């Protein structure tokens, strides 16, 4: 009933240093089995794209990796230990960006970034936050309440959280939504930098996304 096509090679030197290992994962929503027997692993410097049609279970997979949903079967290991055991230790090393931006309309971009970074466990000073926002192309928009920003600008505020954390695992659910061509390029750059520092990323998107110098592994849900 399901088929997975996993393509791509481990291109880093640390190829046996798997940090995230998924084995035999299954996901059931309602009466509906989205996937089962799914296994893959991800090491430092690797990039994985989850592909599939609308409703094929990409978001469900990513949310299962975050612990929001209990898998119907299978296990998720981080550095060799079950993520449920790890709990907060695992959360300290990952960052998740979903369909929702998790920003507050009433606050401005700067406040939003500093507060959400704080809630994620790291205090960020103003200078650092401003630098991140400017990198995301929000110069002269830092002090406007997010409510008045355009859809793409709001997405940029959400994405700027990636710049101030030091999470090793990025889980990005359609990060390119509402971004213009320039911002898509910027995201590719950011992912590239992250990988080159030994980070990992899993993402979904229906748009083309290519990171220079990195082979994107593909996981196809259907």
């Amino acid at each position, binding site marked *: 009933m399901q088929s997975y096509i996993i393509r791509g090679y481990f291109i880093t030197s640390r190829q046996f240093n798997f940090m995230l290992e998924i084995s035999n994962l299954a996901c059931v929503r309602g009466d509906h089995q989205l996937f089962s027997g799914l296994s893959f692993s991800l090491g430092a410097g690797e990039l994985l794209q989850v592909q599939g049609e609308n409703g094929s279970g990409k978001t469900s997979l990513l949310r299962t990796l*975050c*612990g*929001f*949903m*209990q898998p119907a079967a299978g296990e998720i290991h981080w550095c060799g230990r079950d993520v449920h055991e790890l709990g*907060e*230790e695992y*959360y*300290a090393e*990952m*960052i*998740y960006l*979903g*369909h*929702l*931006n*998790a*920003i*507050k*309309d*009433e*606050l401005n971009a700067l*406040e939003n970034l500093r*507060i*959400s970074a*704080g*809630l*994620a*466990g*790291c*205090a*960020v000073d103003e200078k*650092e936050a401003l630098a991140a926002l400017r990198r995301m192309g929000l110069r002269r928009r830092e002090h406007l*309440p997010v409510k008045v920003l355009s859809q793409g600008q709001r997405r940029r505020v959400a994405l700027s959280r990636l710049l*101030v954390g*030091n999470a090793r695992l990025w889980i990005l659910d359609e990060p390119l939504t509402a971004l213009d061509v320039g911002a898509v390029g910027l995201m590719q750059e950011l992912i590239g930098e992250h990988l080159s520092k030994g980070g990992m990323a899993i993402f979904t998107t229906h748009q083309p996304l290519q990171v220079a110098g990195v082979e994107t592994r593909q996981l196809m849900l259907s």
Partner: protein
Amino acid sequence: MNRLSLFGLLGLVIRRDLLLAMRRRADVLTTLVFFVMVVSLFPLGVGPEPEMLRKMAAGVVWVAALLASMLSLARMFSADYLDGTLEQMLLAPQSLSVLVLGKIVAHWMLSGLPLVLIAPVLGLQFGMSFQGLWVLVLVLLLGTPILSMIGAIGAALTLGLRGGGVLVSLLVLPLCIPVLIFGTGAVDAVNTGMTFIPHVALLGAMFLLSLVFAPWVTAQALRISME
């Protein structure tokens, strides 16, 4: 970039929620005016006889407190839920209970504390005695946080309505009844010349009990609701 301590986190959450509320300075005043208004409705309803009003006073103030905390409860988690912030909170590498406690404290500071502060004025409008006023403030100070804490459990359970939201309102609101009964009971005791200590002691016990359990229960309820 350095890690936050638990107290740092608590402070951050409280500051955040207050900041969100303070975006408009008018909001603080709004709550105060709201209390005065709700309390003023009762004489209009039941008539201006001073004797009756004096007797009702404590009940009226407590009802206003309950209403104020109900009105703002619905928003306690739902805004964060709708815009995805709650998801991020569940992913925070710190204790969720502490985070929830922060939100409860902020809620109380916004909806309970103003009432405690204005209660003496309202009491005067109803002709309460000085002693009665003093006890009223004391029991409000103990009781309104309990309302916030019990309410938080309900708000978390009704979020997105897993776990049967119908039952919740039936469970949570009746749980507030003991608070109202002991709260008004203490003031009545003073007015009739009896001791108010037992009432206050019971309220204190409820306060401690909910302080220990409510944040944790709320955190579990949130995890259930987010699934």
